[in-house]
Every structure is written in C-alpha cells, then in structure tokens.
C-alpha cells in the first residue's frame, strides 16, 4: 500500500505533464485515496450482500432439511405460500401493526417529553438520565421484567398497584389485568413503546435544541401565542427529525425479535415476521419457505427505506456541505 502524502488539494492540481506518467500517477493517487476505504467495503459486501444473494437463491427452492433428497426448484411456490398461508399472512399483518403502533406512540410521547425537557427546570439532567434508562436495559432482560415483574397476573407490579390503590378506598376486590393472555399484542406494544420512547425523545430533543431561537424570540416579541409558535415555527423545523426518528425506529422495530420471543413466544397472534421466519427454519426446517419470507421482509423494508434514505439525506446534505 502506498502511503499517500496528505495532499488535501484536489487531483488536477498537479502540473499537467502531457505524458503517460502523469496519468498513471493520477491513477495511483486515486487508488491511494480509495485504499483506506476498501477493507471495510469488501468486508461488508462479503458478510451482508453475499448471504442475501444466497437467500434469494434458496427462496426459489423447495427445501426441507429433514428430507434432503427432495430438494427441487420450486419457482414462485414459496412466495405464493408466504402470501396465502394463514400463519404467515398473519405474521405480515402483525409486523405492520406492531411497527406502526410502536413508532407512532413512541414518537408522540417522545415529542411531549422532548418539549418538556427543552425547558429549564431543577434537576433537568437527572430527569433526562432517568428517561433514558429504559433504552439502556438489555432488550431480553426488559422483556423478562415486563413478563414476570410487571405484567404477571398474580404478583406483577401493575396488578399490585391496582390492589394497593383499591385497598385505600375500601375493601372491594381490585380489578386485575392479564394483558399477556387477554391482549398479548398490546403487552408487546406497551413494552416496546416503553423501550423506544427515549430513543425518539433524544432525537427530537437534539432537533429542538438546534432550532434558531432568533425567530422564536421575534415571534414572542410580536405577541405570538406559544401554540402558534409551536405550530408554525417548531413543528416545521422538527419535521425532518420526526421523520428520521420514525423511519429509523421503524427499521429497528420491524426487525424486533427479542420481545416477541420472550414475552409471548409468538403465541396468540403476536408472531411477527422475524419470529415466524426463525420458527420456519429453526424448528420447521422449511429452508425455502423461510428464505422467501425473508425476501418479503426485505422488499417491505426497501419500501420504507427509500423514504428513510431521503430524510437522512436531507439532514446529511446540510452537514456534507462542508
């Protein structure tokens, strides 16, 4: 590897010698620029892109590892199954429902929290630290805590508090919730919203703190109401941060496996696609079908990602104009 002299000046600055040597030097310089990038790029292509190509290939095979002799080309059969099999169709629907509800709820609550934390008050730093805590509990551990310590119908904290509150007002038996068996998807959503709200709050808070205050000051001087300022100044500025938080959150939550796996083990209509795919190849050994479902997830993600990229791009361009 040639060690490049740290020339910041653009190529073309070099004196134009109408000779081959100049062109080859130009090329050597270009490669010297690329060299530091190549290890990371090659590594990533090998580890992420190749497997996906293989997944694509397997998705057209009828392949169950328990009957290895019967592997055959299946065409689009697996894709038809993914879209018609009631369990897998349910998984697609669950994934969308789970992602949309968690993203929207955590964005809204996160926005409220960010607006509060944007104000100065006593102990703001500590309050922020407390609010970040849910995001810093290992997701599997968080799911276990929700399942056993909070939502357990017999001795979970939620029912415990209900019992305690009712006991203050007399002796009538307190209502007891059993989210995990009566509304398991709601239990998953609640635990995920709790985990992802801090993420949204952090991004939106950064957005709030980057807004130009002079216009707000001017608006206040002119006697604008806080609501008008929020509606016409703050919200438009926050728009791209809301989009960024929503779309990044969606990308992570679409892939969520830990909560579904731990809280409900995919039972009672809570199996999302990642969990269904895991089951399809890990327990049912249907490799072709699992791969087709994986490709369907990617197609869905690409649709979301095109929006996400545009948003990230607008923030990124601002920053890249250096």
């Amino acid at each position, binding site marked *: 590897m040639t060690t490049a002299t740290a020339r910041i000046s653009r190529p073309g600055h070099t004196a134009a010698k109408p000779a081959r040597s100049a062109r080859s030097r130009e090329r050597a310089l270009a490669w010297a620029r690329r060299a530091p990038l190549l290890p990371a790029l090659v590594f990533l292509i090998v580890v992420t892109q190749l497997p996906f190509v293989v997944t694509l290939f397997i998705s057209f095979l009828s392949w169950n590892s328990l009957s290895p002799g019967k592997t055959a080309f299946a065409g689009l059969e697996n894709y038809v199954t993914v879209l018609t099999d009631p369990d897998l169709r349910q998984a697609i629907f669950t994934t969308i429902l789970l992602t949309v509800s968690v993203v929207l709820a955590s964005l809204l609550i996160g926005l409220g929290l960010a607006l509060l934390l944007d104000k100065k008050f006593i102990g703001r730093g500590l309050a922020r630290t407390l609010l970040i805590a849910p995001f810093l509990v290992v997701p599997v551990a*968080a799911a276990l805590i929700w399942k056993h310590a909070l939502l357990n119908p017999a001795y979970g904290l939620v029912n415990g508090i209900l019992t305690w509150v009712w006991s203050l007002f007399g002796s009538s038996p307190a209502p007891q919730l059993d989210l995990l068996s009566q509304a398991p998807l709601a239990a998953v959503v609640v635990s995920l919203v709790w985990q992802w709200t801090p993420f949204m709050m952090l991004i939106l808070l950064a957005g709030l703190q980057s807004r130009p*205050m002079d216009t707000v000051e001017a608006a206040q001087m002119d006697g604008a109401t806080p609501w008008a300022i929020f509606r016409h100044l703050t919200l438009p500025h926050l728009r791209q941060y809301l989009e960024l938080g929503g779309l990044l959150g969606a990308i992570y939550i679409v892939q969520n496996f830990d909560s579904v796996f731990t809280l409900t083990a995919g039972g009672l209509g809570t199996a999302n696609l990642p969990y269904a795919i895991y089951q399809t190849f890990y327990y049912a050994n249907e490799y072709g079908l699992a*791969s087709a479902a994986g490709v369907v997830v990617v197609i869905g993600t690409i649709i979301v990602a095109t929006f996400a990229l545009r948003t990230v791009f607008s923030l990124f361009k601002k920053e890249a104009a250096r």
Partner: protein
Amino acid sequence: MSTLTPAAPRGNATATAVPATAPNARRGKSRMDPTRNNTAAGLAAWLLALLFASPVVWMILTSFHSETDAATNPPSVAANLTLDAYREFFGETSGVSPWPSLINSATASILSTALVLVLAIPAAYALSIRPVKKWTDVMFFFLSTKMMPVVAAILPLYLFARTVGALDNIWFLILMYTSMNLPIAVWMMRSFLAEVPEEMLEAAQIDGANLLLILRKVIAPVAMPGIAATALICFIFSWNELLLARVLTGVVAGTAPVFLTGFVSGQGLFLAKVCAAAVVISLPVLFAGFAAQDKLVQGLSLGAVK
C-alpha cells in the same frame, strides 16, 4: 474510561446561542427565564421520568428481595433486603454459572468493537478528510446494508457456519457483530472526522508535516471523543444482540442474552432471580449509555443528528 465531552460543533453547525433576553413584561417570556410555566413543565417532566424509570427501579429493588417478598400482591416495597437472588443467579445452589456466558458476551462485544474501529476509521477518513469520488454513494451503500433485516441473511450464515464448523464459535459471532455495527461506525466516525477544521489541515501541510504527524497532532485530538463514543455504541448493540447469538451459538459460545432466555424454568418462585439476572446483564450497558449520553443521539441517528 474517560467521560466524554461533546466536541464543539464547528463550521456550519447551527450555533444555539443563548439569546440575551430583554425582560418582556407583557407576555411570552423567553424560554431561558425560569417562570411558573417552567415549574409546571418541570413537574410534568419529573412525573413522567419517574413513571418511565419505575420498571427499572422496581427491577433493582426486587432483585434485593427474597423470593417470597418479591411475589406478593400488593407489592411489599419495604421488605428486608438480601443478596439471596444474586447468590442464586451466580449458581451457588444450582451450580449453573452465568460467568461463561458473560465472558462470551464481553469477548464478542469488545473484540467486534475493536475490529469495527480498525475498519471504520480508515474508511471514514477516505469519506471525509480525503474523500474519494462519489463518497456520498458509498455512504449510502453502507447505510443500506443496515436496512436489511438480519432474518434475510441468517439462514445462509447458519448453513455456512454449519458447513465450515463455525457454529457455536465465538469468532464467527464476532465477525457477524462487526458487520452489524460497521455501517453505524462509518457514519458516526465520518461525522466526527468532518469536524476537523480544514484550515488546520492546510496549515499543517504548509508547515511540511507528514501524514503521520497530521494524524497524531491534528486529527486525533478532534476524533478521540468520537472514537470513544462510537466504540460505546457498538459495544451496546453487540451486548444486546439476541437473534444471531441464539441461532449461531450454543453451549460453548452462548452469550448472556442467550443464557437469559434459557434461564426461566417456570419452576417455583424465580422473580427475584430474574430481576437480579436482568440487573447484572444490563449494568454494563447502563454504565456505557450514561457515560455516552451526549453522544448517544448521534450514534442512534447514524451521525445525522448532532
């Protein structure tokens, strides 16, 4: 581990100047004035903060209770404190120790983070300080790999590992975690390196400093906090990961999250033990996250938000 100080934004970063407020008696006092409004906001924020933190507080409190005190309805907040659950978790009676899995998690997280940095820092240099042509396209290629769900690649990875005998091998998991975090690290590091002032680089060159000297004297001081923050974020994501670890490891290379999933037996009372396990496993992340609070948002938003 040094505490991180946020690097001062340079160049085109929007300066959030504290406006010198003219005392305005009529209405709409400045954000910067402590007013009655702020007291209300502070109260609301504190209530919500306590609500959000309560499961974490409850987890910690319950982990210091005996199993009988942990499983009561209504909850016994003021029960006697004991370390029984921790003794139980560390296998004093069952003989099943979590240590191997914790060590596996630490190994996988630390080594994959080191590998990520080795790959990401030069790449970020070639995308910011001496950018290659079409560097934005390269950045978006990196990002697009992050958008691909793990489930879409996990079967071939599993089959490959099985074929070459890399199943239940920590080194294979380290490679997986490296690829998982590399795009995040490249984006983050690029945004940190972009903060190195161009004038300083030019001045150093005019003085005839060579590349090594420039790296050491000009770039490193600006990039160091960024490198630390990137490392912390990558560490957290690796430490938390479950799906890959569950599919690709078993009894030998199983990580802490895998240990945790096989940990609840459903036999008898185990609530305090579960809480103790959750506390022990979350401690490194809690410390890392609180240490890197200021950089957390930059990492989570892939360096898009400062």
